[in-house]
């Protein structure tokens, strides 16, 4: 591999490394975030927050826009259906039996937004 190409590749790798946020920092930040709406914050506190602020749960963490971007690419309708039907370790309705579709959309929008 020519030296110049190798240098460019290394630089790209370094940049990629810089872009990658520390998982512990992402988790710590997730635990501080809550929706601005008091009503939504109450729902979030007793349901989504249970798993979406804990790295080991495997769920995309609140405020981790990178982790959410892959999910958002599927479309909000799909994500809302996942919340209603359950997916992987998340049970149907994601620990929120009283959530409406609109609630789920608002909660997903909040969790997936970059703080």
């Amino acid at each position, binding site marked *: 591999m020519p030296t110049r190409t190798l240098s460019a590749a290394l630089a790209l790798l370094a940049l990629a490394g810089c872009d990658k946020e520390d*998982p*512990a920092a992402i988790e710590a930040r997730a635990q501080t975030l809550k929706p601005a709406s008091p009503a939504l914050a109450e729902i979030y*506190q*007793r*349901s989504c*927050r*249970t*798993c979406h602020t*804990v*790295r*080991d*749960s*495997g769920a995309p963490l609140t405020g981790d826009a990178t982790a959410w971007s892959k999910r958002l690419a599927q479309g909000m309708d799909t994500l809302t259906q996942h919340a209603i*039907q*359950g997916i*992987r*370790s998340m*049970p*149907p309705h994601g*620990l*929120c*039996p*009283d959530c409406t579709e609109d609630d789920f959309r608002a909660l997903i929008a909040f969790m997936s937004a970059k703080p």
Partner: protein
Amino acid sequence: MAKKSLTRRALLAGGVVGAGIGSVALLASNARPVKLPPPPPSGWSNWSGGQSCNPAAIAVPADEAALAELLKTGKAPFRPVGSGHSFTPLVPTDGTIVALDKLHGIVAQDDAAKTADIRAGTRLGEMSEALDAIGQSTEILPDINKQTLAGAIATSTHGTGIAFGSLSSYVDHIRLVTASGETIECGPDQETEIFNAARVNLGALGVVTQIRLRNRARLVVERNTWFEPIDQLIDRAQNLARQHRHFEFYALPFTGMGLGISNDESTAPLVAVPPTRDTGGLEDLRDLRDWLAWAPPLRRVTAKAIIAQFGPEKLTAPAYQLLSTERPIRFNEMEYHIPRDSLATCLRQVIQTLETKFPAAFFPIEARFIKEDDIWLSPFSGRPSCSIAVHVPNDEAYQPYFAAVEPIYHAVGGRPHWGKLHTLTAKELAPLYPHWEDFKRVRLALDPQGKFMTPYLQRLLG
């Protein structure tokens, strides 16, 4: 699990590919994926997906008044639900599921007595954080913290440690809304018969709305985990349980190895808790199964070689961050509570049964220690106990495995965890509980019309 995960790379380096069996994966019958029923469109299913129903309504009352009105006018049978972490059909009903989600948070605290009044729908994880914020810790926590406090109390959910009972044994006061809509308060000096029944209640007495827990000052623990040959670990288990505040261990099937976990109170500096290795380790045990189920000796040698690479791990953190862990892989579970001195014999029989008849099994077998109590329907009533739990992923058939293991527990007078799969009915359960008829008498007095009774509850209680 340990400092390094049993990574797939490690598996390959450990000889799976080198053994020249790269494309072979023979699975036993219960490893074949089972098709889970789709979740009911407007219904309910439990966490594992093994229980589901289409109730007439799922009600989420915001307070006791709304709950009382619901119980007067709603469609029975009523079944309270927490987080749906029970594997038994305690919740399914064609009447009304009563979700406790809106009843959450700490209501009051006594800093001197270290007690807290907690709404019944508070999940254990939220509760633990809130208690930490007021300088309190529960004495124990189960290994999952998604359950609500009411659900945990209803089923006598426990942690591990010979000096510590289940969460129910730390309950000092209960508020309960009964079938008639009446609110009853009970405690050690108030409505004592109801209190003795309500501390482990199966959701059969009414809907618990608030619980006072007897806690302690904030607890920091040092957790140590290590691998050890399972025969040696079983031999040492009773001593280890006496030496440590909390001790539990896992038998890793088809490896000849076990994983010991101790937690002891500590004043050492806290460390940041690293990501769990449990999930990766579990996936790798499954990989070992998938590749080598056909050759148990090779599976054992390979596993031992891999595990030998991993040293012990030590962490110091607030207890609630270490005693409970995440479960990203959904499963079904059977757990029985047996007399403590039956542990070694019973566990060896379980391991032998599994390793001779069920090559597809890979989930670690969990053994824990629980102090005796005096609660009527507590599985720990009147005897120091150990629990042995077996698990199967929720997309694999558990019935043959659990059916083979369950008689081992019955032979030593085992009592099932109320929220975990078992086949017992009132006929077999009644002789196991000296206060069985007392519980039924209190239940009948509180719910003479059977508003909380489903066909399953009828079979269970008689």
